[in-house]
């Protein structure tokens, strides 16, 4: 994945700052609660939502089970329609393919449709290193790019910014990238949008190369689909002479008809729209209009390895709607940057440690970035049981075990820093397997209860820093039960 995130601290440390940042928490709370309520209303309108959710899950599971077949079919369809298909095993290979394709056109700049896959591989930075400038054209991505910032949300990458901050970024930075912001720019949404429109328009009209991702790829026809709501995508997909799309291999669906399900569930889950504003579909090239050249770069980058895991593979159903982020109480407090990945929130916490592996400090900490409240699973339009995968990945971190990396089975050692926890869990299991040992421990706690300190040492400090300890009772329940047989022989 992108080099931007190498060396990220573990989640709790990264979240610590965000929790203490009142402006950020206010921005996130306002934005997530607004979109959460709108989504709930948009979903409640659909009488067959549960069936659509189940259908989406089944289509994705079926496709993933036969991914080898559908990808080859897709390649044939795209090729037959005049496109060229490239296969990239990892981020480096994908970046090299795209850079070479751009250089072959002789161009030095490209316009981009908002795309998670190109962020995942750090394409902009890779192109910059080759002397090619990539312009983000999605409004929020523009804010992030101008502010030399990182996205903090899949769908609303500048969700951590408020209007005042956006005005300042536009006023200060637009000039260095092209048309400057109008004089006296205020923070009203209409003015901000107009400034972005004027700034981006000259880029759309000048660009010879467009780069996109795709929400879906239809195997039977070779059609790609981009779902967006600003119209910038339509510009990038139609005006340039060369179009390069970088798409994760899990984005394929078998037939055009399968889109019927996702074009209902995706807009309502993501932006609470009944129907998506700009849905662009294209199939190869045509001689009369649009790009003359079309390249599809199919990206693996850890997806096949993820597919090999029976529990974890459900993460590949994800259609990047962000409903799980918007409903997540941890995301709301920690913010997107703490997840150290272009995929933040609950889905990021199960996707990043699978795509990248659990070796780094941040990836080993992500499976624990959840209270397992289950709100994410409830809203997921393809029924990814995120808590189930989180617990599965905790097991991988704490216990190690067999995983697939680069197509090979390897056995992971337990991650560092879990030795004390492992010993405690084993000791607790030992005691709990013996009611007598549990009872002895309870009695010891009860007898010494007046001696217990108010703040705990060691790992317990994490509890007592923010919360009082519950008082230990004079006797555990089981002693009362044995003494009184459930109150029937009181005083005996």
């Amino acid at each position, binding site marked *: 994945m992108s080099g931007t995130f190498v060396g990220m601290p573990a989640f709790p440390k990264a979240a610590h700052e965000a929790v203490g940042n009142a402006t950020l928490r206010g921005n996130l709370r306002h934005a997530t609660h607004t979109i959460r309520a709108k989504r709930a209303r948009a979903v409640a309108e659909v009488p067959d939502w549960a069936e659509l959710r189940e259908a989406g899950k089944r289509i994705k599971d079926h496709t993933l089970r036969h991914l080898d077949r559908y990808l080859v079919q897709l390649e044939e369809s795209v090729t037959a329609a005049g496109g060229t298909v490239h296969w990239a095993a990892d981020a480096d290979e994908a970046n090299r393919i795209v850079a070479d394709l751009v250089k072959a056109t002789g161009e030095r700049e490209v316009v981009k449709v908002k795309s998670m896959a190109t962020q995942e591989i750090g394409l902009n930075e890779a192109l910059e290193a080759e002397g090619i400038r990539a312009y983000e054209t999605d409004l929020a991505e523009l804010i992030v790019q101008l502010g030399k910032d990182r996205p903090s949300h899949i769908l609303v990458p500048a969700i951590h910014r408020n209007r005042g901050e956006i005005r300042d970024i536009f006023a200060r930075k637009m000039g260095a990238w092209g048309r400057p912001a109008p004089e006296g720019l205020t923070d009203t949404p209409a003015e901000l949008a107009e400034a972005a429109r004027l700034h981006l328009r000259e880029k759309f009209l000048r660009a010879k190369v467009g780069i996109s991702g795709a929400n879906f790829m239809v195997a039977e026809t070779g059609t790609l689909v981009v779902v967006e709501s600003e119209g910038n995508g339509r510009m990038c997909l139609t005006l340039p002479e060369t179009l390069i799309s970088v798409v994760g291999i899990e984005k394929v669906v078998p037939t055009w008809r399968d889109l019927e399900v996702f074009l209902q569930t995706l807009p309502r889950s993501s932006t609470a729209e009944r129907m998506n504003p700009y849905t662009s579909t294209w199939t190869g090239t045509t001689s009369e209009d649009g790009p003359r050249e079309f390249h599809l770069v199919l990206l693996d980058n850890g997806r096949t390895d993820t597919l090999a895991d029976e529990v974890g593979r459900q993460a590949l159903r994800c259609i990047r709607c962000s409903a799980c982020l918007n409903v997540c109480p941890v995301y709301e407090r920690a913010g997107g940057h703490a997840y150290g990945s272009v995929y933040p929130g609950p889905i990021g916490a199960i996707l990043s440690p699978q795509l990248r592996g659990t070796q780094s400090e941040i990836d080993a900490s992500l499976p624990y970035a959840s209270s397992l409240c289950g*709100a994410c699973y409830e809203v997921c339009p393809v029924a990814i049981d995120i808590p189930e995968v989180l*617990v599965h990945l*905790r097991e991988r971190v704490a216990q190690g075990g067999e995983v697939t990396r680069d197509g090979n089975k390897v056995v992971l050692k337990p991650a560092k820093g879990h030795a004390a926890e492992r010993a405690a869990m084993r000791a*607790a299991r030992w005691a709990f397997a013996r009611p007598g040992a549990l009872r002895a421990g*309870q009695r010891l706690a009860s007898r010494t209860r007046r001696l217990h300190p108010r703040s705990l040492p060691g790992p317990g400090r994490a509890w007592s*820093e*923010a*919360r009082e300890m519950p008082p230990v009772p004079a006797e555990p329940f089981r002693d009362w039960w044995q003494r009184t047989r459930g109150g029937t022989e009181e005083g005996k």
Partner: protein
Amino acid sequence: MRVALFLTCVNDTLYPDTGKAVVKLLTRLGVDVDFPMAQTCCGQAHYNTGYRHEAEPLARHFAEVFGEYDAIVTPSGSCGAMVRELYPRMGERARAEGRGGALADVLAPVVPKTYELTEFLVDVLGVTDVGAYYPHKVTYHPTCHGLRGLGLGERPRRLLAAVKGLELVELPGAEECCGFGGTFALKNADVSAAMGADKVRNAESTGAEVLCAADNSCLMHIGGTMARLRTGMRPVHLAEILASTEEEPAV
């Protein structure tokens, strides 16, 4: 019907009053409830922290201890969800690991017999008015594993609404997690505490004296936060409210 109280290790050790309340309540409703002394822990903390293999012997132990009963009642949504949702999953995982169906077979009998307290009252006994008296202003927090795991729905609210003298007020943001999350409270203490503080502020805004829930582990976190923030509100387990009567009021 032979009914066993599965109290949970947390309640047994720290909240004996909740156990006494369940016994008192069920006895009043004519249920002869037993407390099998060999019970310990369902293994939830082990399982959810990534120690599934350590949880397995505890699950087997649970199945041995409770297997002979017709119904197993627990005053904990999360421990109830552990048995009902995760025991079958543990069995399936063992099968997928090539260890055969032995674990699944051992655990299967206790799964459908395990009821969270409000399920047992409303679905099995068919009561919503349990004859309780509790003259206080109460707000109710539906805990996550009860709400989304077991699907308790309106059962707790229906039981509370039938309590004489009780004024039930709606908790803003009720369905949002309180931030406990087992070992999450320690591993991500900052986020956990922020979630807890928000929950407590919402509870305070209702003007209630008591925040009620059906899971003491969440109440330990919420109550600990209330005490630290000096709100004056009290956390009380639903069972203690339902056990309370005019003759024998809860303290």
